[in-house]
């Protein structure tokens, strides 16, 4: 029989004692096998890069200069003309890119506001229960009892239109679904053995909530963010379309609003460009949300 080399032995040991994998690592492995999900992550990264480059002024700038006559149809003569021009002769292609910048920033900022609120309130309510729980539940029941588009309209209406009001309105309302999930998970987890064990060795409430339980429910945060990001993009488009959103700079919603009068003149390209740009990012998030749920939520494994 052949002598075992050191490398073989190392292999054997590795086989015998498989390295422990965390929930996240496990989920990531499953996600990596999902080619469609990887493609969607690629689309999201691409949009993010475009948004950052536009923000830095590297591409699609300046967007508010005349590149051709009013309502020039799409042509392949030069890059700015690829989606045609609007009534001022501005490049629709540049405006779409600037719109991506607005959309991605709305998704990012609103999630950065809503996610910490959702996690903190959900964790406190689920972990401590009692009156804290009652207050938090009352808070999110109240917020979710106002139809979301009406609530957004009302908040932006009273705060005054503009991108700032949109960030705020979305951030302050979008935490409800995450809070509900986190609260439910904390209620389940707080009496599990590992938490009781942590308590018995003297872990404080703070440490139990944030160091022990939170990492075990953090996959719900990722799933929720992927959905909230998309909802924020869709909401911004509607609000900007209604004229209470982004002011003085291109946004997909503003472009669609402009385009509704252009259609009767046969100028379909501004509407088509804004719609397509929105379609691909929303599609990517839709598929990604499902893929993340399948990959990260082991209880649902094998379902659907």
């Amino acid at each position, binding site marked *: 029989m052949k002598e075992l080399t050191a490398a073989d032995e190392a292999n054997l040991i590795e086989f015998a004692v498989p390295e422990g994998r965390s929930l996240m690592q496990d989920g990531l492995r499953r996600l990596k096998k999902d080619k469609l999900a990887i493609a969607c992550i690629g689309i999201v990264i691409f949009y993010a890069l475009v948004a950052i480059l536009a923000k830095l002024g590297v591409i699609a700038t300046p967007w508010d200069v005349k590149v051709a006559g009013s309502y020039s149809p799409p042509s392949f003569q030069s890059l700015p003309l690829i989606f045609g021009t609007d009534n001022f002769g501005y490049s629709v292609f540049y405006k779409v890119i600037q719109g991506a910048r607005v959309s991605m920033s709305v998704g990012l900022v609103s999630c950065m506001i809503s996610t910490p609120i959702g996690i903190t309130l959900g964790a406190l309510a689920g972990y401590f229960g009692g009156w804290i729980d009652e207050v938090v539940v009352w808070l999110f029941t109240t917020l979710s009892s106002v139809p979301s588009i009406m609530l957004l*309209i009302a908040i932006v209406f*009273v705060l005054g239109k503009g991108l700032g009001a949109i960030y705020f309105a979305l951030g302050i309302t979008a935490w409800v679904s995450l809070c509900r999930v986190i609260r439910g998970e904390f209620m389940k987890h707080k009496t599990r053995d590992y938490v009781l064990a942590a308590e018995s060795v003297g872990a404080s409430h703070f440490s139990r909530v944030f160091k022990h339980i939170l990492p075990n429910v953090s996959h719900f945060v990722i799933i929720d963010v992927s959905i909230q990001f998309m909802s924020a993009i869709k909401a911004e488009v509607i609000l900007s379309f209604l004229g209470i959103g982004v002011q003085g700079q291109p946004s997909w919603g503003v472009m669609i609003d402009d385009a509704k009068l252009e259609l009767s003149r046969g100028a379909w390209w501004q509407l088509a460009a804004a*719609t397509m740009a929105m379609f691909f990012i929303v599609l990517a998030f839709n598929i990604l949300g499902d893929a993340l749920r399948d990959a990260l939520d082991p209880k649902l494994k094998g379902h659907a």
Partner: protein
Amino acid sequence: MISYILRKIVSTIPTLFGVTFLVFILFNIAGGDPALRIAGKYATAERIAEIRHQHGWDQSLPLQYTHFLKEIVTFDYGTSDVTHQPVRDMILGGIGPSLSLTVPAFFLTTLIAIVIGLLVAYFRGRWVDKVVVIGCVLGMSIPMLAYILFGQYFFAYRLGWFPIHGFEMGFPEQLYSVALPVIIWVMVSLGYDVRFYRTAVLEETNQDYVRTARAKGLAEPRVFLKHVLKNSMAPIITNVVIEIPLLIMGAFLLESFFGIPGIGGITIDALNNSDFQVLKAMTVLQSFLLIFGNTMTDVLYVWVDPRVKLS
């Protein structure tokens, strides 16, 4: 059961108060002085004071809040500063046109979605199922505005099959003027709804009782029709019921685009004209209808599904 329903109704009271409180804070405090907004940029101090007095905004906040509660209870929201009509009459007048759009649209969507959802759930994993699931995700990702604008452009403007704009009362005309908005509504909602009903049914097919039914030799159609379908009724019914009260509120964008004088259209007009009183009334009303729908669903859920504990 009756005590459960009563408890459910009582439990909505804090939420109702929460909503009125939220709307009050938003409109009467956070937005700054609403009188300035109504009076416009060039108003004199007397005019502003007059508006304030008219609306009772010169009173203390608790008094303003009780006045607001009184408005809600008596369903008398005063007069719109833009249209100079009583807000109540505007709302009541909008219900008819809204319902003539939303009721056919909703029932058509629900019917089609349930049928497709059940069919693809039955053929789960096969190509029909896969095609429909992909179609749903694609359909969900197309912006609603695109459906409306392109639909209006092609079917009404280019092909001339439907009116582009406007609303007529009376039996055949009314159907004609809501036909295209109804079709667009169905297109927009079908993706979500089919997916929902498919998942609702599929969740049941993984249950133990289904395996038992198969194990005792029941044919697949029988398992599906007799066992799975019956048990997946609870989520299906609740999903339908929760929507019904909101049908009164119409559809913002569709009504606005097609010139249907329903509640949604009125709300969009109010937004464009900064019509404070109307927006406030609409926000409260929509919320109350949503709470009503939620409560009805909770009650129905117990009624449909005896496994749910009455707690």
